C-alpha cells in the first residue's frame, strides 16, 4: 500500500468552526487508498464522516470555517495543495462525483443536454455540435430511453431513477479515473436501486474506472465493493477485503452492525442483536475507542488514546483492543 495507489488519503482531518459555536471534528484522521480500477466502500452511520471525507477529497467543502489537514494524493499529486482553479480543472475530468439526492442535484432550469454538454465543453475541446452528440450518446449509455428527446427536457420531467442515471452520465462524461459515489441509491426504491447499482458497477468495470462507494447499507457494499472501510466517529475502524469483512469482522462495531441488521434471507426466528445507545454516545478518540460506550466488550483497556489499526494481516486491520476472534468473545 505504498505510493502506487490511484488515490491515497492519509490522516485526513476536517474541523468545522462556526461563529459562536464550539469547533466540531467531522473527520478525525481518516486514511484509505484506492487502486486503479478498484471499487472501495466507505460504510458508516450518520455522523461518521463519510460524506465529509468525500467532499474533502473533491475539494468541495466550503472554504470558510473549515480546516483540513493531512494529505489526499491523487495519482501522486496532493489535491489539498492545489489552488482552487487547478483543482477545478481536475474535477469532472480526472475525478468525478455522483451525489445522493437526484431530485435536487440537477439544476432545475437547465435542460439535461445543457448540463451534460457544459462538463464536456469545460474539459474537452469538443465544439458545441460534437458535445451535443456526445451528450445524447451518454444518455443512451446510461439507459435513458429516447435520449435525443430527453436531452431537451428539464430535470423535473424525469423520475428519480432516471435523474440518477443522468447524474451518472455527467460523472462519466469525461472518462474520469475515479468516481466518488456518495449514497447514490439511498433516495431510490429497492428495484430502482438495483437498476442503478447494476448500471454503475457495469459502467465502472467496463471503463476501468476506480470508484469510492459511500453508503450506510452493508448490503449495498456486499454486492459491489472489492475492499471495505468501516467508519465510526470520523475514523476508519476496520479495513478489509469484502469477503473477509463479512465472514470474519474484527471490530466490535462492524460485528455489532452485522448482527443488528435484519436480512431477507434469514431463517425464521433469527433474533436481532441491537447495538445499544446511539451514535451520539461516544468518546473523543483522545480518550480511547469512540465506540466504547456502546460496546458490550469494552473495558478499561479501551480507554487509552490512539488505538492503532492492526491485525494479523495488513489487508485486514481493525482499530480495536478486543477484536472478535480473541478469547474475550466467549465472555
Amino acid at each position, binding site marked *: 500500500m505504498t505510493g502506487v495507489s490511484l488515490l491515497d488519503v492519509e490522516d485526513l482531518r476536517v474541523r468545522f468552526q462556526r461563529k*459562536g459555536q464550539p469547533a466540531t471534528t467531522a473527520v478525525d484522521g481518516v486514511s484509505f487508498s484506492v487502486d486503479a480500477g478498484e471499487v472501495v466502500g466507505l460504510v458508516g452511520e450518520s455522523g461518521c464522516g463519510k460524506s465529509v471525507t468525500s467532499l474533502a477529497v473533491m475539494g468541495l467543502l466550503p472554504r470558510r470555517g473549515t480546516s483540513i489537514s493531512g494529505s489526499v494524493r491523487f495519482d501522486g499529486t496532493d489535491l489539498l495543495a492545489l489552488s482552487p482553479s487547478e483543482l477545478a480543472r481536475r474535477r469532472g475530468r480526472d475525478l468525478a462525483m455522483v451525489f445522493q439526492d437526484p431530485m435536487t442535484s440537477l439544476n432545475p432550469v437547465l435542460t439535461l443536454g445543457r448540463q451534460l454538454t457544459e462538463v464536456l465543453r469545460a474539459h474537452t475541446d469538443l465544439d458545441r455540435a460534437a458535445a451535443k452528440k456526445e451528450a445524447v450518446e451518454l444518455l443512451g449509455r446510461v439507459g435513458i430511453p429516447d435520449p435525443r428527446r430527453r436531452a431537451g427536457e428539464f430535470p423535473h420531467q424525469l423520475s428519480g431513477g432516471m435523474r440518477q442515471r443522468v447524474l451518472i452520465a455527467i460523472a462519466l462524461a469525461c472518462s474520469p479515473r475515479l468516481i466518488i459515489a456518495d449514497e447514490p441509491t439511498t433516495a431510490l426504491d429497492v428495484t430502482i436501486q438495483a437498476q442503478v447499482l447494476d448500471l454503475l458497477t457495469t459502467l465502472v468495470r467496463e471503463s476501468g474506472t476506480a470508484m469510492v462507494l459511500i453508503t450506510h447499507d452493508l448490503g449495498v457494499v456486499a454486492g459491489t465493493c472489492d475492499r471495505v472501510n468501516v467508519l465510526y466517529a470520523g475514523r476508519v475502524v476496520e479495513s478489509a477485503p469484502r469477503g473477509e469483512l463479512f465472514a470474519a469482522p474484527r471490530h466490535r462495531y462492524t460485528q*455489532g452492525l452485522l*448482527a443488528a441488521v435484519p436480512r431477507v434471507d434469514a431463517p425464521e426466528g433469527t*433474533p*436481532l*442483536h*441491537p447495538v*445499544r*445507545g*446511539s451514535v*451520539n*454516545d461516544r468518546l473523543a478518540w483522545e480518550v480511547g475507542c469512540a465506540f466504547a*460506550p456502546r460496546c*458490550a466488550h469494552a473495558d478499561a483497556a479501551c480507554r487509552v488514546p490512539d488505538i492503532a489499526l492492526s491485525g494479523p494481516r495488513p489487508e485486514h486491520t481493525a482499530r480495536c483492543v478486543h477484536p472478535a476472534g480473541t478469547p474475550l468473545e466467549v465472555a
Partner: protein
Amino acid sequence: MTALDALTPQAPPPAEVTGGGGAGPWRSAWRRLRRNPAGIVGAVIVLLFVLVAVLAPLLAPFRPATSEWFGEVTPTSVPGPSDEHPLGLDSYGSDLLTQLIYGARSSLVIGVVSTAVGLAVGALLGVLAGGIGGWVDTVIMRLVDVLLSIPSLLLAVSVAALLGRSPVSIMLAISAAQVPIFARLLRASLLAQRGQDYVVALRSLGLRQRRIVVGHMLPNSLGPVLVQATLTLATAVIEVAALSFLGLGDPNPAVAEWGRMLVTAQDRLDQAPWLALYPGIAIAVTALGFTLLGEALREALDPRSGR
C-alpha cells in the same frame, strides 16, 4: 449482548444532563435573542421609545402645542437652539423638544392600538379560514384578496377619508391595512401544520378539532405572528406619519405628531431644515428599533433562518 441491553436506560450525552429541567423552545429562543447584538440594539431603541412616550409629561420641558413663543417666529426665520429651548422652536412657536417627545406618545398609541386591532381581526379571520376551511375559507380569503389588491397606504387613505379625520379613524385606517396580512399569515401557518405528522398524531389520539387548533396549532403559529406584529409596528409608525403627510392626520393641533411636524417643516426647508430633520430621524429610528427587534425575533424563533 441480549435484547435487554436495548431497553436499559442509556445515559444521555453529557451536554443534555446539565440542562436540568430541559429547555423549551421559548427558552432557547430567548437565549438566542439575548446573544444577537442587532436584536439588543433594537430592544433598547424600542424600550427608550416606550419610556419617552409614557414619561412624556415628566421628560418634556414644557407643555405641548402651546404656541407660547409664537411671537418669536417670523415669516423668514425660526429661532434655533437656545438655553431655554435646547432644539429651538417649531414654526408655530412651541418648544421643538417638547413636540418631539409628545410625538413619541401619539406614535406609540396609534401604532400599538392599530396593530392590536389589525392583529385581533386578522388573526380571527385567519383562524376561521384555516381552522374551519370550506366555504368560510373561500369567503374570507376572497375578502383578503380584495383588501390586498389595494396598496396598504391607499387602503389606509380610503378608510381615513371615509371615516373622517380623527384619531380613531387613523388607527382603524392603519389596522385595515394590517388585517389581510395577519389573516394570511395565520391561515398559511395553520394550513401548513394541518398536514404535519404531529397534528395527524393528535387526531389519531382522539383529540377534538378545537383542542388541536387552540391548544397546539395556534401556539405553534405564535412565533411568526409575534415577529410580524413587531415588524408591523415599524410600518405603523411610518404610516401614521405618511397619513399626516397626506393631510389625513389627527386634526387636533394640540396633539404633537411627527408626520405633521415634517409636513409643516417643508415650507421652511431653506430657513430651518432641522425642523424636518428631527421628526424624520425620530420616525426612522423608531421604525429601525422595531425592525431590528422583529428580525432578531425571527432568527431566534427559527434558528435555521439565520441570515
